[in-house]
Structures are given as C-alpha cells and as structure tokens.
C-alpha cells in the first residue's frame, strides 16, 4: 500500500491526471453534444489524432502556437464534415463511416508521420498566481501549459449552448424525437451535422492541445484509443454534461495513476495489467450505471424524412 500512498501524495500524479482529463474533456464535451443530437460519433478518435498530427506539422512549419491550435481544430472539423455528410445527408450507417474514418486516419497519419517527421516544440507553462499555490490540486489545475486552460471555458460554453440557446433546444429535440422535431419545423439532419462539426472542432483542438501542451512531441500512437474513452465517459455520465466531466476526471485519474506507479519505482504489477486498468474501470463503471441511465431516445437512429 506504500506505493499507492506515494503516488497519491505526489504532485506529479495530479498534474498528469489533469492533463489526461483535459484531453478527454475536449473530446467528450463535443461528443456529448453530438450524442444529444442523436449521433454516437465514434470517429472522435480519428478527429483527435488528425488534430494532433495537423498541429504537430503546423508548429514545425510556422512557429505560432495559436495558429497550430487553430489548424488542429480545423483538421478535426474537416474530418467531421466527412462523418456528418455521409451519415446525415447520405443515409450511410454512422458506425461504418466512423470505423472507416478511424482506420483511414490511423493509416494516413502513420504514413505521413514517417514522411514528414515533424519536430514539435511544446507550449510554455503559465502559472496562475495564488491559485497555483494550493497544495497538490493547485499546481495540477493552474500551473500547466497554457493550451490546457482552453478547456476551462469550453465546458461551460457547451452547457450554455445546449441548455440556453435555441440551437441547443433543437439539438435536444433532434436527439429525443426527430419526427416531432421535424413536424415542428426543425431541420433534424442539419442540427445533427452541425453538432458533429462541433465535436470535430473540439476534438481537433483537443488533439492539438495534447501534442503542444501535454506531450511536446508527436508519435502516431499518441491518442491510443482515448477517443473511445471519451465516448465511454459520456455514456458513463448518463448523457449529462456533469456526469461526462466526472467520467473524464475519473478516467484521466486512472490513466495517470497507472503511469505514475512505475515512475515511483513500483513495478510489482505487470505493465500490461496496468495498461488495462483504465479500460477495466470503464467497463466496471458502465456495468454499474448502465441500468439506471436513459440515453437520448433517438441515439444512433438515422432520421429519414417522408412517409413511412
């Protein structure tokens, strides 16, 4: 148990937990909106990776952090136009499209990474005065590289968008009862496409943040399935934003915990087992909460107009 104690009292564990949680939050906050609109958008994994790679190449070519972040977000957006228009303009199956995108991006990025081999310079750490002096949590939340801080306004902005704007109301109607929404004069598939563009932007940005603000270098396994964990966080959170944030923090903490243990010199548990830990927690979480949560009624159901 000494190992666990050492890890839990170590500042590094908390800092790295926040960095992982932030990555998940960039992806999950957009994914939450897409799912509320009725799309189980699995291409979020590919969106993260494309954002990460595009920003890595950008920072190599032009030395502007803001521009690299922007290009990362646009790469995610570009990918989301493929997902959105294939699954909500043409009636292609959203999972087949998503799966294809993920495989395609993984292959393409692997190839281009070998060709271009971008060298990345990370963003600088900015400490927020006073707040970063709080023990353990302070530096973890407020002494990070500055792109991470973008996630703090992003999450409440998503809540406001979904619950306080007409667009958000229409998105929720589209995800719950597309036929009624249609009869009420809402362009259901347009709302669904737009919500996918949104997750494209946030996860592209998330990928860029991870390269520039957390890792500081690029390799093609950098995302490594965390897009899927972001999806799991949304489900774990019962399709509420609060719950999704809790899911991201929990899963981020678990990832950080398993990375910190060996760093502290404890390797009694096999690394393979440790690597599986976040996924085990995900499955356990889903098993615990699956029966008491209600997904958006039209989640993953395509909407076609006309007489049935």
């Amino acid at each position: 148990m000494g190992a666990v104690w050492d890890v839990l009292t170590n500042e590094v564990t908390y800092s790295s937990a926040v960095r992982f949680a932030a990555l998940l939050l960039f992806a999950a906050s957009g994914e939450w909106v897409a799912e509320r609109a009725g799309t189980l958008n699995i291409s979020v994994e590919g969106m993260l990776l494309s954002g990460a790679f595009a920003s890595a190449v950008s920072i190599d070519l032009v030395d502007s952090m803001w521009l690299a972040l922007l290009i990362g977000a646009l790469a995610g957006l570009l990918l989301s136009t493929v997902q959105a228009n294939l699954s909500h303009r043409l009636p292609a199956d959203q999972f087949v499209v998503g799966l294809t995108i993920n495989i395609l991006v993984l292959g393409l990025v692997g190839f281009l990474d070998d060709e271009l081999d971008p060298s990345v310079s990370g963003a600088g750490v900015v400490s927020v005065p006073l707040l970063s002096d709080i023990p353990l949590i302070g530096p973890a939340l407020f002494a990070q590289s500055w792109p991470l801080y973008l996630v703090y306004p992003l999450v409440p902005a998503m809540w406001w968008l979904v619950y306080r704007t007409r667009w958000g109301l229409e998105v929720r109607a589209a995800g719950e009862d597309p036929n009624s929404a249609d009869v009420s004069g809402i362009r259901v598939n347009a709302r669904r496409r737009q919500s996918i563009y949104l997750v494209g932007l946030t996860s592209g940005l998330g990928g860029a943040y991870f390269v520039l603000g957390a890792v500081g270098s690029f390799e093609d396994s950098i995302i490594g399935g965390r897009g899927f964990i972001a999806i799991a966080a949304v489900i774990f959170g019962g399709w509420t934003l609060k719950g999704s944030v809790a899911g991201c923090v929990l899963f981020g903490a678990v990832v950080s915990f398993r990375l910190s243990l060996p760093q502290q010199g404890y390797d009694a548990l096999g690394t393979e087992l440790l690597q599986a830990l976040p996924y085990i927690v995900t499955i356990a979480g889903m098993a615990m909460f699956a029966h008491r949560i209600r997904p958006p009624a039209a989640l993953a159901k395509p909407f076609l107009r006309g007489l049935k």
Partner: protein
Amino acid sequence: MQTPGPAAVELVDITKRFGRVVACDGVDLALQRGRIHGILGENGAGKSTLMKVLIGLVHPDRGEVIIDGQSVTITDPIDAAGKGIGMVHQHFSVVDALTVWENIALGDVGRLDPAAVRDRVGDLSRHYGLAIEPDARVGDLPAGMRQRVEILKCLRRDPHVVVFDEPTSVLTPAESEQLFDALRRVVDEEGRAVALVSHKLEEIRHATDTITIMRQGSVVERIATADSDAASLARAMVGRWVSLRTERAALGLGIEEAATVDDDVDDEPADARDVLELVGVSARGGDGRVLLDDLSFEVRAGEILGVAGVEGNGQRELGDLLSSLAPISAGEVRVDGRPVRCGVAGAMSRAGIAVVPEDRHDSGCVLEMTVAENLFLAEPERIAPRGVIDRRRMNDAAIELIERFAISCEGPDSPLWSLSGGNQQRVVLARELSHEPKVLIAAQPTRGLDVGAIEYMSDQLRLAAETGVAVLLISTELEEILDLADRIVVLSRGRVAGEMTRRDLDLERLGLLMGGADVSELAP
C-alpha cells in the same frame, strides 16, 4: 351561422398517389373563418393525406392551395405556420424529454427567452381554459395534458386555420367535452377556421358546423351539420346502409344503443371457471416508473372481458406482459390455476395464451416473409418436425388456414406486405387460433382497419368465446368494448379502477372511472 364567410383556405382538385394507391383524387375543400368543418371518413379514406397537404408534410401531384385568393405552395410545416395554418397532430408532435415551455418554444426562431415563453404559456392557458404547468416534463403528463401542450403550441403561432386530426382518440369523454368547448371559443371569439378530422360520427355531428365526407380518396358528400342525420352520414361514409350492431359501434354510432340492446344475451354461465388470472401484478419501466400497479382480474372460459381505459394507462404494458415481452416486479399470472413465468420468451404462448398484438407490424408479423411462413412463425415444429421445413406440409397446412379464415391472398407464397391490413390481421388471428389456445388476448384488434374488417374481427372474437376460449379484449375504443364485452374492467394508471358487468352498466360511472376518478367516491 349559415352565411359562409370568406374562405380562409381552399384546396382545389388535390390529387396524391402513393405507388398504385390514390390517396386523394381531385378533392376540393374550403375552410371558412368562424366555422368548424368536420371531415369524416373511414381509415384510409384520404382525410389525413389531405390535411398533410394543407400543412406541407405531403406535396400533391396535382391541385392548388389557395389562401386569400392567391395560389400558394406550402413546402413544409414551418412554411404552413408562416402562412397561418397549424395542426394538432393525432400522434403528438411534442418531445417527451423536454418541458412544456421548451416544447412550445420548439420551432420558433430568434433568441430563446425562457421567461417570455413561460409567461406566454401562462397567458394562453388562462385564455383558453387549458391549465398547464410550464415547467413540467411532457413525458410525465397524461395524454390529455400532452394534447393541451400540442394545442397551445399550435395556437401560440396565431394561425387562421387549425386542423385537429382525430383529437379525441386519447381523451376521456369528459376531456373531449372540454376540448370541444375550447374549440368553440377558438372559432366564435377569434374567428379562426377549424377542420376537425375524425372517423367518429357522433363527435362530428356534435362539434361541427358543416361536414365533408370522404371515401376512397374522394369527397362523396358535403352537408350542413344541422341538416344531417346519423344513418345517412354512415351510409355516405361506408358506401352502403349499415345495420349491423358491430358496424354501428365501430362508427361510434349510438353508444347507448350498443350498450343496451343486449337483453337476448344470456347471463354468463355461473359455473364458468377462471382460465386466466392476474393476481396483484405490478411492473415497472426501465426508469423505475410504475406501469402496472397491483393489477388483479380474472377471465373465465367462454367470456369476453373488456379492458377499457384511455390510451397510455397500462394497456400496452398489459399486452406486452401477456406476450412474454415484459417481466413483472410483483404478483402472479396463472393459466388454469398454474403460474406462468413472466418475461421468459414463449412462456405465455406455451401456457396456452394466444395474442393478437396491438401493433401487428411491430410485433405481430414479418412483412417481408410469406403468408405461410408467418402462419407458422410461432410454432415451427408443426411443419418442421426435425428442424427441417417440410415444404409440402407447410403449404397444405397454410392453404387450410387460408380457406378457414378466408384470407384474401394469391397463395401461401405471396409476401405478407402484398396483403391488405385487414388480411394481414387475419393471418395473425389464424396463426394464434390454430394453436387451439385457452386464452385469446386481443389488443386494439381493429385499430386502422376498415368497417368490413372490424366486423370480421368482432365475429371471430365472439366465435372464440363461444367455443370456450377466455377472451381478453384490450381496447381504447369504448364502443368496441361496449359492443363485445360481457364484463368490463377499467384500467387507469396501471390499476383496475373499477369493474362492471353488462347488466349493471353505467356509462357515466364508466366515463368517470376512465378519467381516473377516485373509486371510493363512486362505489355503488
């Protein structure tokens, strides 16, 4: 009242085909301000298609929509709303997961202002006498309240023309009265034009000023309500004189009559044994909501027990339960005194319960399979003794059933979708009755069928009861229950609100029970 004002909207020569079916064939219709215009017809007569043209959900192949003398094209419901046409849908267009005010704001444009919408909901509901809580979640409200939301949503856009599509199908008799009162106000005080679409003769006569009757896509008669009589309306609607009691009940013609002409019916045999028993059955939904609440009743051999009630009070759940589709949280279901496990696939069927389900397309048959395959879907061992289908045996057995139940089709190999709705229903009925069941559950067995098919279905239910089957008829059509049932239990909020036999039938008490009135106040 007899001088027609200027037409608020006119439909001219509207024609619409779906494949080979002509849903509307050169239909003309003018809706006047300050008048309630009844549009009467059987299921499939083209009423709904015509109204969908009016609100832009269906685009006609030919014909014109004229508003204030101008020919217009209505592209979609929002466009229709902009042109002053609104509709209160039969299957509501409200989103259960949203609150009342959110639903009413849905489809507006501009910035969302919750406080303003809430205030407006309050004003509207006071004005029309339709009380409603703006912050309630719509899914938690009973059907009558959800319809109020639908009506307020429609009236909020201040339409000149309001279409009500079968508005009373989810209402208790008292709620229907309230609705017609509000309708009158909309018409008399505000000069709107109202179209009331219905297949129920009595309510059309009761609530309208003029009537247009449709049959098979065409207008067959236009008449002022004051000059009409029920029998000739019924004749125009069905295309022949109707005299049979069932038919009259199916048309909603004379509830009193259907309920009282039964002096020739024997009292149920006193020694009839209970075949199906439900004892304290409770069931909960996935979200923990109580769907069936300590439900107890029994059905005797040779009787038809009618389960009356307003839609959404547990009918669907009761049907699902007896189709082995849903588990229960407490209580017991017994057939011939032996308990049956609930929620285990096929258990109810093996215990001798046959089901004609509420939605035959959803759970009654497979449209892409052939008639013969559908006939043996539930009991394939009869035609496939060792797991391999014996085609000759299947064909012979299918032909026998097709003849016995007079199923109109090209043969056992024709796909089920090629049959009419009434004949698809016969296939389901033939399959269920061919097992020689002890209990027959008929859930909304005549929904969406025409008068002839309703007649056939009613005869079959009576016949089944005569041969000693315990028949449970679950229906939201009160006329159907009154016509067929020997005994009636009223289902309200998932529990039995009251029970009465044909002998001590009291329509007023029945209506109150359906509306969820407290039983203790009504104890005879």
